[in-house]
């Protein structure tokens, strides 16, 4: 017998009688203000929400806060003029010197500040992790309250890879002291577009 056959035969012999799946697996969460809840939670996990009316406001914010920074890339045509790095590369290792990536978010979750991005937003899977700083543009209309609502809206296998990103990368592995910027981005700014 192959390992597969052995394992499956042992499982079949040992698994208990079929138990039903629960009927209640979705719960509703009511927040008075989804955008505020998202912004507060994002602050709690080390990120920063910036409320903006249009791309011009994002443009102005980046010009002000990332003045003189090189190695900027974006997938957003509206912000293309800010970029000095072309994402049309074949080897993702070339992204190693990226300082700021500005990408689009597909959906945002108020309860945990998670933003879903998949290969429709990511020309390279490693882009939101390898960049030193990350900015994500989220339309406030895509906010949902909790993870049940998020999975209801999403098709997780629409592309080969997708991820929820909640805040900048972090670790507390040295004496429980929180350090922002473990291996992924050192900072996350989320532009909350009206």
């Amino acid at each position: 017998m192959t390992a597969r056959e052995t394992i499956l035969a042992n499982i079949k012999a040992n698994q208990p009688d079929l138990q039903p799946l629960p009927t209640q697996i979705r719960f509703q969460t009511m927040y008075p203000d989804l955008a505020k809840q998202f912004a507060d939670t994002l602050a709690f996990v080390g990120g920063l929400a910036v409320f903006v009316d249009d791309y011009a406001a994002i443009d102005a914010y980046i010009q002000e806060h990332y003045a003189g920074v090189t190695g900027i890339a974006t997938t957003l045509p509206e912000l293309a003029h800010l970029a000095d790095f072309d994402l049309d590369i074949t080897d993702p290792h070339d992204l190693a010197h990226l300082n700021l990536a500005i990408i689009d978010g597909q959906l945002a979750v108020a309860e945990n500040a998670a933003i879903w991005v998949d290969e429709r937003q990511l020309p390279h899977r490693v882009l939101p992790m390898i960049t030193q700083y990350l900015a994500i543009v989220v339309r406030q209309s895509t906010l949902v309250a909790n993870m049940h609502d998020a999975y209801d809206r999403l098709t997780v296998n629409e592309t080969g890879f997708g991820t929820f990103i909640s805040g900048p990368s972090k670790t507390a592995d040295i004496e429980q002291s929180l350090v922002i910027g473990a291996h992924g981005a050192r900072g996350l700014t989320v532009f909350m577009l009206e």
Partner: protein
Amino acid sequence: MNQLALDHPDASTVFNKDEARVDWHDETLWFVRTKRDRAVQQIPEWEQLREAASQIKNHVLSNLHDLLIDFEARAIANGITVHWATDAAEHNALIHRIITEAGATQLVKSKSMLTEECHLNEYLTQNGIDVIDSDLGERIVQMRGEPPSHIVLPAIHLKKSDVGDTFHKHLGTEKGATDPQYLTEAARQHLRETFLSRKVALTGVNFAIAETGGFVVCTNEGNADMGVHLADVHIASMGFEKIIPRTEHLGVFLRLLARSATGQPITTFSSHFHKPQPGKQIHLVIVDNGRSRQLGRPDFRNSLKCIRCAACLNTCPVYRRSGGHSYHSAIAGPIGSILAPNLDMRQNADLPFASTLCGSCSNVCPVKIDIHEQLYKWRQVLMQEGYGPTAKTVAMRTMATVLESPRLYRLAGRVGRGTLRFAPVLAENSLNPWYQQREMPAPPAQSFRDWYINQPKP
């Protein structure tokens, strides 16, 4: 298996020699537990969520055969290569083969308790593969030649000065440096170099979705993603119990996991893998290693519901005061103590006794495993199977004899009271484990029975 150097009580005794450090360890873990409580209190339906998760997992255990077959077919259709391994040896050999076939001699890993359970690092190192753990805590203990002491916080037993010394030795950081920011930055630079140069990366699996043939990997550091997206080959190792039926079930589990683990609302990255990138490969290894045997034990199969959040470790009064290494098992703490005897009863016979049976573990478990009840049941099994410690077996047998005979019981009581009164040294010495860290009670002058008999009769 090697003979144990120290069992849990003896290793705990060593750990407890530095009282200040034990207090610090205890308080640090309790701090994580309180963060968990605050995160949980934000979810009014928390108990219903736990119940939903528990029932989903009950269904999974009862339907594993079909779910795994569905999952496999869809994963293959997605372009993922699926492998099966009955035990640790097969798992390790398979992974070595995949690395070799990729023409690589180096591997970068993110956290996987399964590979700890299988002792993969030792195996690969012996076979000439250079393995680097990329989770910061795991990298720290790897440099020190230690196993992780906690499944979520691998270096929780170390102080920042210990980490500073380790990094000074291995990464050339300044001698005496203890600033976590500085030390983390040094590790970031070192591991970035690693991520950029490895062709093969290994991750664990938090959840595998039968409905879509994909799997989810959760990290805070982004190390799993950095490793696999920059490599040509992604190997994912999973115990077969990681399967869940549908995507919508992730809504339940991802709400529970990080809140239970560290008190975060969700991990920084929850990455869903369905297809390899063009020109690259994903190899998924489905591992049994004793799990199907545990599935066949009705009293203990529930342990397979575990999602490895470590809430039971953080809350456990024994874990907090004895340290993860005292458990001499890949998974320490209460959950480890009910998983380990299934792997090796003789080697791990001490672990179900490393508990006060207070039940706090079961109360915080996000999938409602009856951990403390299983600890109690393992004790019965281990004593019946003859794996009990000799001293305990003899003591229990003597006690049974005494308690069975009223005459012997009265005699023993009289001797005990007399001893404590007239020759306390016989009880108050280092040979009596009850006397260690305790005062013996003041002996009463007479037993309740004697007192009762002497009462005036109505």
